[in-house]
Structures are given as C-alpha cells and as structure tokens.
C-alpha cells in the first residue's frame, strides 16, 4: 500500500475536512472498505480534535436562551439510523441576525426554514412585517409544544409592540367556524386575529404585562370576546413584553 498516491493519500485532507464535492464522496466510499485508511483517519482525527479544542471560546449571551427555548418544541429525529434531513440555511432574505431568529422560529414552528423563507419571499406585505419582527434587535422567542401535538411559537419585539405567532397542529375548525387568537392578562381578553391554518399571524398591538395566549373556536368571522373554551393556551412571562 502506498500512502502517498492514490485514494489512500487523502486521509490527511479528509481528517482536516479539506475535501469537497465528488472527491469527498469518492474518498468516503473508499474509506468504508479500507481498513488502513480507517485507522489513519481515526488517529488523525484525534489530532484535529486538539486543534478544535484549542479554538474554544465563549458563546454569546443570548444564544443559550434561544437554543434551549427552541429545544423545548423542536422534535428529534425519529430514526437514529437514517441521516438527518439537513438544516440547510439558504442565503437569508433579511439581515444576518434575522436569519438566526428565523432559524429559531423555524425550529419553534417545526417547519423547515426554507419553507419559511419561501413564504417570506412570496407574500410581500406579510413577509415584511414578519421579517421586521424577526430582525428587531430586541426580538425574543418563546413557545411550547403540547402533548396533543399542537404547538404555539412566538417571536416578539417589545420595541415594535409586535409579535409573530404561529399555532400549529390544531384540527381545522368546523365548517362555519374560525380559530381566533386572544391575548389575556389584565383586563378583558383582546383579539389578536383569526388564524389561517398554521400560517404565522402578525399581532400588531402586542403589548401588556404577563398573560397568556389562547385559541378558541368562534363563529365565522370571529367574536368580540371569546365564547368557546381555549383549545391551547401559552402562558407569557413579562419578558415577552420587554419588562
């Protein structure tokens, strides 16, 4: 075996992630059936691990909350065997910070980011409003997935007084009825609008203190005050409103 030419010679570049495209795929096929290369790569990987650890840093403050919040509603892959559908980030339609939040929002919403972004591209006015909230420097996220499979996700900007709310996993309302979203807290519940499937809803006047979001089934076109029992409810801490 000659380690300096032919497919065996690529163990070094491979261990450094310095192969790409067809060459990477070809070497991985070779690696799968070449014991000496497997041994080489395993040894070289312990070296690159040292390089990795030497680059250790401090993660930014806000990242922890965003990741842990997202994890509360983000489903895990079912089959450990099958490779994951990759979380591909396409070039963001808005600012880079917004892309980060879009990712978190997508995770919260349980939708592929690309779908969110396609939607952002397609539906202009709604998209701008959503993008604006996602891009707000004070944007924050909260959400929860419930045992029945429904989920509520919120990205809010106290500065803008707006929020993007997505409710997913609810059965469609009966014919002649609508799902209506409410903000409860001090005073009477306030309507935030009618839900259209799991489309994100922009709540334009999202202000208050601690409270809750609730969805009820209401007669076609909605009600002035909730008449049905809540189908889902999400408690909101005051920090959602920037307090």
């Amino acid at each position, binding site marked *: 075996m000659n380690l300096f030419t032919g497919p065996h010679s690529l163990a070094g*570049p491979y261990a450094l992630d310095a192969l790409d495209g067809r060459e990477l795929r070809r070497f991985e096929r070779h690696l799968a059936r070449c014991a000496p290369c497997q041994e080489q790569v395993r040894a070289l990987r312990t070296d690159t691990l040292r390089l990795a*650890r030497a680059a250790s840093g401090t993660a930014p403050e806000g*990242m922890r909350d965003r990741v842990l919040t997202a994890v509360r509603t983000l489903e895990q892959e079912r089959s450990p065997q099958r490779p994951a559908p990759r979380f591909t980030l396409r070039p963001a339609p808005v600012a880079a910070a917004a892309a980060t939040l879009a990712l978190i929002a997508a995770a919260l919403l349980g939708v592929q980011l690309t779908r969110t972004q396609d939607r952002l591209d397609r539906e202009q006015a709604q998209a701008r409003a959503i993008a604006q909230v996602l891009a707000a420097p004070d944007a924050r996220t909260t959400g929860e997935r419930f045992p029945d499979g429904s989920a509520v996700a919120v990205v809010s900007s106290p500065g803008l007084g707006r929020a993007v709310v997505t409710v997913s996993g609810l059965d469609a309302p009966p014919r002649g009825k609508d799902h209506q979203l409410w903000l409860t807290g001090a005073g009477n519940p306030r309507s935030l609008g009618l839900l259209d499937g799991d489309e994100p809803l922009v709540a334009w006047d999202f202000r208050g203190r601690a409270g809750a979001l609730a969805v009820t089934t209401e007669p076609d076109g909605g009600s002035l005050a909730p008449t049905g029992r809540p189908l889902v409810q999400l408690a909101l801490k005051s920090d959602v409103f920037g307090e």
Partner: protein
Amino acid sequence: MGADELLPRVAQGDQGAFEDLYGLVSGQVYGLVRRVLRDPAQSEEVAQEVLLELWRGAGRFDPERGSALAWILTLAHRRAVDRVRAARAASDREERVARRAQTPAFDHVAEEVEAGLEREWVRRCLDRLTALQRQSVTLAYYDGYTYREVAHRLSVPLGTVKTRMRDGLMRLRECLGGGLA
C-alpha cells in the same frame, strides 16, 4: 457528567441533559465555528444550527466510533467549513484571500478566545512544524480551504500538500503527546 454520558440521554429526549451538554460544549462549538468563520453574527448562527442539530440528531452518535466531543466538534467544524466555502464562493474571493494572506493564521480572534493551557500547547506545537506543514494544516482546518485551494495558494503540488497535512498532524501528535488528553 461528561459529554459521553449526556449525549445518549439527549437522544432519549432528556432536556435537562441537553442543558448540561450545552454548558459543556457551547463554548467549544462557538469558538471553533468563530475561528473558521470570523464573523460573529454568522458564527452565532452556525453554532446555533449545530447545537440544534445535536438535539435533533443525538441518536446518530455511535460511541463505537469515538468520543461524543469528537463527534460534536467534527459536526461543528464541517458546518463551519460548509458555510465559509459557500460564503467564499459567493463573495469577492480574491480580495478576501489577499486580506487573509497578510495575517498570521493564529492571531485573528486571539483576544476573543480564552487562552487556555490546551491552546498554549497547540500553539507551541504548531510552531514546531515546518512552515509548509503548519500552513497546510491551519489553512485547511482554521480557514476552511480545501487541499486543492491550499496547494494553489502555497504554489506547491497537490501531492506535497496531501502529505504535509498528514505528517503535519502526526508531528503535532508527537509534540502534544505529553500534553493534555
């Protein structure tokens, strides 16, 4: 509990274990991604992507094939490299290359990165490689260049770069042998 014990629990959907794992590895993930990408906003984005992928795909970790930390940092490095290559392909490649060529590879984010003992060891050992070994290794690992790009940038044959990467890493291992595990 270490990453090797935590990751299988995460695979079972244990959010508390994920929180502990986050505490253990987020700095390492972010630091490595930042090292490759440089840009803080992009680094945060990719690091988050990696951490969420850990949650989603923890079940893919196979302890037979190495440590959890190795698995995690390999994932982080690949995502960072994918991103830097995509960005490079999209942007003004020449200007970027010229700008980077003037800066020594190890000093970019020095002030931002915690100066640990491990870091010192690695730096010292990198200094003991030949210039060609060191550049081949760091341009690939810390700058995300493919070995073909490295060969082009250093104006050396492909075969030379392949072997310098390999023997550079092996020499690093000899030097680090007495250091931290």
